[in-house]
């Protein structure tokens, strides 16, 4: 990450508080102009929290759905962000990977088919992989020779190390590579494992229709309040008995000004609950109307809620930071930019916006490729700048040529009527 030193420092403090379990029940607001890295800070915070802390990310407009009421969507989001760490006996598969076969259909569409062959010193078995499992195997980069365990219920993969028999396969194995024995006996075992489930997952398990009706239950839709109450009671019981531990996670709501007054008052109440996650919100609005009312308020958030929050401002990037971000972005997109081009691109980003500058990277590199140049030069950036309007120039253009566009006559008539 580049720049935003003070905002990042603030995020670091928030992270520490989350880790210590201090401010569960309070909220953080990231406020700043468009393109100042609010979302980037939130995602970085999520990855810093690690695997065990639930992190839910949603956009403010996501709660408007025809299938679910607004408060239900918010409740689900909140409950997805509260984890329960519990010890449970679960079926695990432990073995050395013999082979991973993952086939994508030739057309590029449809479901992937995957097989995993695992062995112990005594046996070998072929497993079929479901879609989610294929993804996590690809993500974990599981390869033959690894010794892994898979939790059958949750699909969580743990890599124990590499098998001793494969120790000589590579000369250059990293220092952190651990060599382990191939397991013995049966592949499937029952073991007590500690895993983290979210409250929402427990809700879903308990609200699923039983038996014959299970055929028709697709998505769970709304969950009955009685089910939730029952689960809250049970979790509190486990907690008292020391069986379970509650981990407040993080709920990130982007574009929070899209929520309306009902959601805000709901959030207000939800934050008072003792089992509440940390809510991080981001907005790019200044003083604006609160959705669903005619009142104006800073960031479009009612003052009472605003009062509960820690507000972290993000400031626009300066020239040096912009240059660094742009060059990182160039690397990501495999573009070669000459120094001159980068300088002019930085100037453009300063004057217009960072996002526009980033758009110009790809477009100008395509222009450069057209004239078969290995590197993007100043002329290519200039050409792209002429071809594509930024927001400021687009507004100016519209002001000048408004009359030529459609539906313009009506407006003029209206104006005349007003004069009359």
């Amino acid at each position, binding site marked *: 990450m580049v720049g935003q030193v003070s905002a990042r420092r603030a995020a670091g403090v928030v992270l520490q508080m989350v880790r210590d379990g201090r401010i569960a029940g309070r909220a953080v607001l990231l406020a700043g102009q468009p393109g100042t890295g609010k979302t980037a800070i939130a995602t970085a915070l999520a990855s810093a929290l690690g695997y065990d802390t639930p992190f839910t990310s949603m956009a403010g407009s996501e709660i408007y759905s025809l299938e679910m009421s607004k408060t239900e969507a918010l409740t689900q989001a909140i409950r997805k962000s509260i984890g329960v760490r519990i010890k*449970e006996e679960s079926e695990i598969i432990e073995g050395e990977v013999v082979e991973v076969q993952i086939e994508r259909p030739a057309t590029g569409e449809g479901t992937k088919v995957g097989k995993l062959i695992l062995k112990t010193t005594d046996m070998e078995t072929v497993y079929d*992989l*479901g879609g989610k499992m294929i993804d996590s195997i690809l993500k974990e980069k599981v390869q033959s020779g690894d010794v892994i365990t898979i939790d059958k219920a949750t699909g969580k993969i743990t890599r124990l190390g590499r098998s001793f028999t494969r120790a000589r396969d590579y000369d250059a194995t990293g220092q952190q590579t651990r060599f382990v024995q191939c397991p013995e006996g049966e592949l499937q075992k029952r073991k007590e494992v500690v895993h983290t489930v979210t409250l929402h997952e427990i809700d879903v398990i308990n609200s*699923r229709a*039983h038996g014959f009706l299970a055929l028709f239950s697709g998505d769970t839709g709304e969950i009955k309040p009685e089910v939730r109450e029952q*689960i809250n009671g049970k979790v509190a019981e486990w907690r008292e008995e020391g069986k379970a531990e509650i981990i407040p996670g993080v709920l990130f709501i982007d574009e929070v000004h899209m929520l309306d007054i009902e959601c805000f008052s709901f959030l207000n109440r939800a934050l008072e609950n003792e089992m509440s996650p940390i809510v991080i919100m981001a907005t790019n609005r200044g003083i604006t109307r609160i959705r669903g009312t005619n009142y104006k308020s800073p960031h479009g958030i009612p003052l009472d809620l605003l009062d509960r929050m820690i507000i972290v401002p993000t400031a626009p990037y300066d020239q040096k930071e912009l240059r660094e971000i742009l060059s990182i972005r160039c690397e990501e997109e495999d573009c070669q930019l000459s120094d001159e081009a980068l300088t002019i691109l930085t100037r453009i980003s300063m004057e217009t916006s960072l996002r526009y500058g980033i758009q110009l990277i790809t477009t100008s590199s395509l222009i450069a490729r057209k004239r078969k140049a290995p590197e993007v030069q100043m002329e290519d950036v200039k050409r792209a700048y002429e071809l594509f309007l930024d927001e400021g120039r687009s507004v100016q253009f519209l002001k000048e040529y408004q009359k030529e566009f459609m539906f313009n006559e009506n407006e003029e008539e209206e104006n005349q009527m007003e004069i009359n």
Partner: protein
Amino acid sequence: MTDWVSRLRNAKKSCLTQGNLKKVHYELEKDLELVEEYNMDTGVLTRRAWRRKANLGGEGDWDVEIGDQEPPRFQKDTWLIKEDPNQPFVTRRITKNILEWRIRNLPYPMEMYSVTADAEKRCLVVRTSNKRYFKRLSIPELDRVNLAPQQDAVQFVHKYNTLIITYKKPPEVIQQEKIIFEDVKNLQSNTNDPNDCKVS
């Protein structure tokens, strides 16, 4: 009288008859259910299945001890990982005098198998000499009368891709099953069959 018999006698029971089959449902303790199905003509148990409520709630799956596995219910593609259908799987059956395991999808020839009784861990161990298959088979019937398995009661044959292992029931097991069957016979069955839909 053994623990097992008293445990069944203390359980909350309900029962129903369909043709010559009598099905008994036991609620053994909180969150633990047992279902047995008896053929009343022969007096032999044809199915026995267990279900334990999961810690997190929700209905668990039936764990079939005796009889065929439940046919796979319609599932959305929510499963994560499962054994390939061509992999070996075990089904159990009991008759009047023997306990029987059938392990299907085992293609190796007869001389490659070994089945040993592990008295310490109270199970039978199936191995193949090519190290492709390994399984510990527990023997709940022997556990219930507190006996360890004996090697000389074990026999096995291989045909049609299937390894069939038989274990001769010791007299204690036969005695206990007789007592339980007497109890089952005396159970008052629920007369209205839930599958019998009356059309009005």
